[in-house]
């Protein structure tokens, strides 16, 4: 059943700057493969957007295992942007993504400003890409995260990409900074259509008996229900400080989580770790969304976005 054909008089489409999504439910980069993997379990056509795993200019083998470890209500990962590079992505993964109904938001990570710009121009030149998400926030590689921790570099990298391509641009920010609002404002000044909040929280797990870190790469990114309060706090703070729309990401596992993010200021959401432990979570949420919006008397998603009030 297509969600836009439900009996509820609720419109689900949302606008993220120049990017329009059929509904606000997307799947987060690095947590849904290249979508083809999930075709047997998930009716992909129903999703609002798909973000394939972040690509880099050159192929990267990724970090040595163990690459993930479970923690209380969450997990740490140090995958390290394991991917075959931008050309292999265009040749092997993009045609399938482009054939699907949901918007394809390609996540790119450059080591330098120049590399970001070149990758953006390359993606602009191939059909089937609906928007770019700039991963300026991966904690598992050096380089990437600097653009997400310094407002000036963040503004410049976003502006450079805006100049180099005509695609809508989202900047995905890291929570691992003292003042995320300053970074968000910088991305807005750089011309971002929207912001994706947030990437994983830097963390670590220790095997005390062996006096060793558990992850092969020592540090990793924390995700899952454990980080939801941090992500909501950041969406709430940033929503008050910028005029561009936000995509909320962090620990979303059910319809209540989605509604919390929307009310706190997100226009759309991305589901991450929950895809791993509840592979059909995205469609279950889509089934429940019209009713949940209707309960707040909404006729469209925008009716609830950022409607939170203090006591």
């Amino acid at each position: 059943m297509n969600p836009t054909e439900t009996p509820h008089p609720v419109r689900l489409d949302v606008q993220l700057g120049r990017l329009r999504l059929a509904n606000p439910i997307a799947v987060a980069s690095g947590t849904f493969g290249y979508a083809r993997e999930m075709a047997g379990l998930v009716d992909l056509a129903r999703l609002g957007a798909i973000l394939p795993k972040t690509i880099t200019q050159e192929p990267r083998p990724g970090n040595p295992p163990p690459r993930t470890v479970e923690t209380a209500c969450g997990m740490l990962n140090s995958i390290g942007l394991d991917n075959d590079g931008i050309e292999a992505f265009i040749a092997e993964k993009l045609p399938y993504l482009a054939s699907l109904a949901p918007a394809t938001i390609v996540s790119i990570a450059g080591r330098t400003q120049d590399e970001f710009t070149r990758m953006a121009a390359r993606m602009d030149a191939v059909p089937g890409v609906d928007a770019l998400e700039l991963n300026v926030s991966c904690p598992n590689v050096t380089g990437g995260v600097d653009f997400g921790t310094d407002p000036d570099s963040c503004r410049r990298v976003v502006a450079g990409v805006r100049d180099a391509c005509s695609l809508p641009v989202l900047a995905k920010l890291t929570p691992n900074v003292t003042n995320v609002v300053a970074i968000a404002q910088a991305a807005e000044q750089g011309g971002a259509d929207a912001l994706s909040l947030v990437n994983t929280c830097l963390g670590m797990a220790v095997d005390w008996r062996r006096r060793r870190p558990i992850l092969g790469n020592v540090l990793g990114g924390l995700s899952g229900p454990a980080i939801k309060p941090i992500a909501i706090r950041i969406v709430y703070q940033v929503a008050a400080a910028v005029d561009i729309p936000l995509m909320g990401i962090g620990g979303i596992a059910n319809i209540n989580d989605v509604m919390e993010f929307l009310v706190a200021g997100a226009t759309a959401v991305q589901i991450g770790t929950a895809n791993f432990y509840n592979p059909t979570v995205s469609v279950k949420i889509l089934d429940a969304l019209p009713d949940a919006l209707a309960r707040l008397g909404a006729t469209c998603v925008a009716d609830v976005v950022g409607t939170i009030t203090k006591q």
Partner: protein
Amino acid sequence: MTEHHHCTCTSYADRARQETVAVEENVQVARDTYRVRFACEQIAEGIVPGQFVMMRLAGVNDPLLGRPLAMYNVVPDENGRPQQLEIVYRVVGKMTRRLSVLEPGALLEVWGPLGNGFPPTETEHLVMVAGGIGQTPLLSLAKEYLHRQTYGSPPRQVRQAKKVTLCYGTGGGEYLACVEDFQRAGVEVRISTDDGSAGHRGLVTELIRPVVESSDHPCRIVCCGPEPMMAATAQLAGKLGLHCQVSLERSMACGLGICFSCVAKIRDESGRWDYRRTCVEGPVFEAEDVEFQQHFSQLKQRPKV
């Protein structure tokens, strides 16, 4: 020689289904070892030997992620249609400890079938080598090769083997689980224990050579267990000139190929290794293609098998 199957092709979990199931039976079968049974027709219908399911306790966030568990057996209904799945598991940590105390009626989330499974390869004498809980994917394989049961839909056709032997090693006799199931299926079982409390005292790999050398038929080896034991078996198979497949264990977060947690170093034809996802391109690999983890036992503390 038996034909050679390379199982490193890209595959997708296209037949996987996610189901919430209720425990029907959960019983202890050896020290720290249990067998759980539940109905899930969709998964039971399609699953083949060597494939696995991801399982988690329904409705809790801690433990959060699913755990990979091999299909031990498919139980048909009265009309012979695949209906229930049996999983045999060793209690080693958070999830398996909680699983072991579940009563009938408790709910589990499972998704599968996952992984490539053992490819059907023509074999006259199948020699199965198991260490610890590594016997779990092998019962169904033996039943398939001895034409006691078929698996998959449509049912997989495997040329009948003349003989199947299980070389099964554990820390002590009290850990030996479900040996009767193998014997009932017509498998010749040879046992080793570290402490000599049952069977041969020593390593399970020491059982392989006598089986192979006294066999009247060409042998092929399949192996599942702790990494050092699989590495040793692979090495021995190489020396004996026998085809060998191993089922690798890696820690997994999704089982579906979307998280890139479960990678193993697998060599291609040119001998270069690349990280491959064990959950979709494995867990069964050609032993000669695997770059075994040298210090696996140091990476992960396992109870003695």
